[in-house]
């Protein structure tokens, strides 16, 4: 029953968005956004205010908005279900997506700004502000996490290539028999570094369409469900899909996301819309 309702919601959302894009914009420029699917890009452009909304086939929705500062930085806030955790882990050992609200600050340089051939560069920090509770009082109340990433992006012929590294750290506190146990993603001082990559193809025969794929990393709270004993871990997430530019500053995207240790049936299909407002 819940599944049907969610599907209906998804269909209504899709119909509304498609109806709103009946008038198509002329295709004369490539759209650059701050994210491919889940991997960040180095592009900081596309209007003074950017906003996006997404919904997946389960009915889980996500929203975000960011403010561009002078074309060299952006600050934004988003709420999504990217974080996964073992909810009520003592009882059912099941890992589920949970809602988390994060803030992001990015600053960087445009392509060719410092020298010819220089890719667009960005340094970003994402800080989790709050997350859903993870279960009973004996289980962690919330997760704190923070990412820092450096990424370079460059248009090469009909492709846009993105590559970089992401460092992540996370912490959660568990209280067992009045003993406070802190679980940390990293044992050393420095965050765990992982590569991120993405590729976008803008086929010339479909000038308003972009095909895309990426690889990124997310934090996951596994609680007691992880046989290896690591309760807090990093998992990869791969995404691919298509983006359609409806208006000059409005794009629609349909993407599929796969996660580590997750079967193909558990993959999510996400429909999203992205707006850019202002100059």
């Amino acid at each position, binding site marked *: 029953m819940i599944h049907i309702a969610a599907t209906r919601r998804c269909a209504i959302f899709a119909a509304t968005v498609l109806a709103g894009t009946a008038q198509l914009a002329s295709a004369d420029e490539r759209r650059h956004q701050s994210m491919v699917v889940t991997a960040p890009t180095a592009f900081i452009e596309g209007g003074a205010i950017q906003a996006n909304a997404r919904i997946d086939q389960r009915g889980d929705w996500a929203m975000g908005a960011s*403010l561009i500062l002078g074309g060299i*930085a952006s*600050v934004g806030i988003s709420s999504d279900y990217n974080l996964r955790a073992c909810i009520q882990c003592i009882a059912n050992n099941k890992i589920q997506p949970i809602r988390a609200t994060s803030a992001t*600050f990015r600053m960087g340089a445009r392509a060719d700004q410092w020298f010819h051939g220089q890719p667009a560069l960005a340094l970003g920090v994402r800080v989790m502000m709050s997350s859903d509770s993870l279960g009973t009082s004996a289980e962690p109340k919330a997760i*704190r996490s*923070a990412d820092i990433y450096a990424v370079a992006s460059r248009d090469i012929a009909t492709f846009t290539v993105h590559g970089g590294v992401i460092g992540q*750290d996370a912490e959660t506190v568990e209280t067992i028999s009045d003993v406070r146990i802190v679980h940390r993603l990293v044992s050393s001082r420095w965050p765990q570094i992982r590569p991120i990559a993405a590729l976008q193809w803008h086929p010339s025969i479909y000038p308003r369409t972009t095909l895309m794929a990426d690889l990124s990393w997310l934090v996951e709270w596994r609680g007691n469900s992880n046989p290896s004993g690591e309760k807090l871990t990093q998992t990869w997430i791969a995404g691919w899909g298509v983006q359609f530019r409806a208006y000059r500053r409005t794009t629609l995207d349909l993407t599929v996301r796969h996660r580590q240790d997750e079967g193909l049936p558990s993959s999510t299909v996400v429909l999203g819309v992205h707006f850019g407002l202002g100059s």
Partner: protein
Amino acid sequence: MIARKFQRTRQANRNDNRSLYAMLPKTSQRQRLAAIAIVIVNAGVVTQALAQSPGPDATAPTAVPPDTQVAPADKPADVVTPAASVEAQPVVQIPESITQPATTDNPYQPRFVAKPAIKRAISDLPELLAAPTGYLLGAGDIYSRSGLDTGGGVSTDLRVGLGDVAEFGIATTDQIRARESQEKTAQRISPYVTASFRMGVAENRLFRHQPGLTLGFRKSFQRDTDSFKTQIAELTLVASKHLGSRASLHAGAAFWDASISPSDPSSDPAATFALHDQGLRKQLRGFGGVAVKATNNADVLIDVAWAPEFCYQCTQQIKLRALLSWGVRYNIADWIRIESGVRVSDIQSANLLDAQIFGQLTFVSHTLRNFIEAVRD
């Protein structure tokens, strides 16, 4: 009458700000130095001519060459107007205050009245992101900054410039933190109210290439939280220097003091822990930062500052922690700016989870200054 004068003065200041701002990226260092030299020489010539002028009946000096343009004698050399910096105009423009003669017979009365004419470059604010700079507010300028961060911290700062040489301010800071013990996470003490007074000299005021220098003192009101009374004080000396037209460098030293004592009045007075008992090495810290004008309306800022952290159950109850901030100042207009960036509260521990993203809104108002000038005229 005053209102009309006030409007005129405000419009003139706006125009000056616009023209100055437009000039900055276009003129080279050599052009600016040449312009400064021309203005200094011209000012000297005119001043000398005025000193030799016959008396109260004279309304304009005749000894000034007709192709000379004059700047006010008290105007600093780095803030010349674009017209004066490019080439001399064939019209003698002498400020009214200079041409007005003394009206009494008092020989010690100054022959002309100094007018505050400082128009600062757009990034010459008293603070970078967390560290103070060597720049002061102009006389009568009101500066206000309000900020939020992802940890729920709220900060405010309100300052007023005093006579181009000092400023006074009241602020609430969210940078002071306390922890129960070494193992526990530090939590901010907020709001922490401070008052500050800074005084100094503007850049290039005393001699060429002299950096802006400011001596500042900041002291908190006593804060009672978690059964402990705490307070802080900071003495800073900071120098700031423009490097070309698109960057400025800031460096200084801070002398810190802080104290913590139990709130319970019956507690042992010896339980008070003060930073000044730990010696100078624990109190003295260097700080600084850099500002780069990345685009015409945005500056990139990086700074390192210090803030005390209290620990209630530790042996060393007060420690100074370094605060690294980087971010962008977006100049929407000459009176409003948005600043945003990342602040890492304790860079010695390199804990990414301590990072906070913040946003700040800064206003600088010249209204009071314009009003004072209008009334004075």
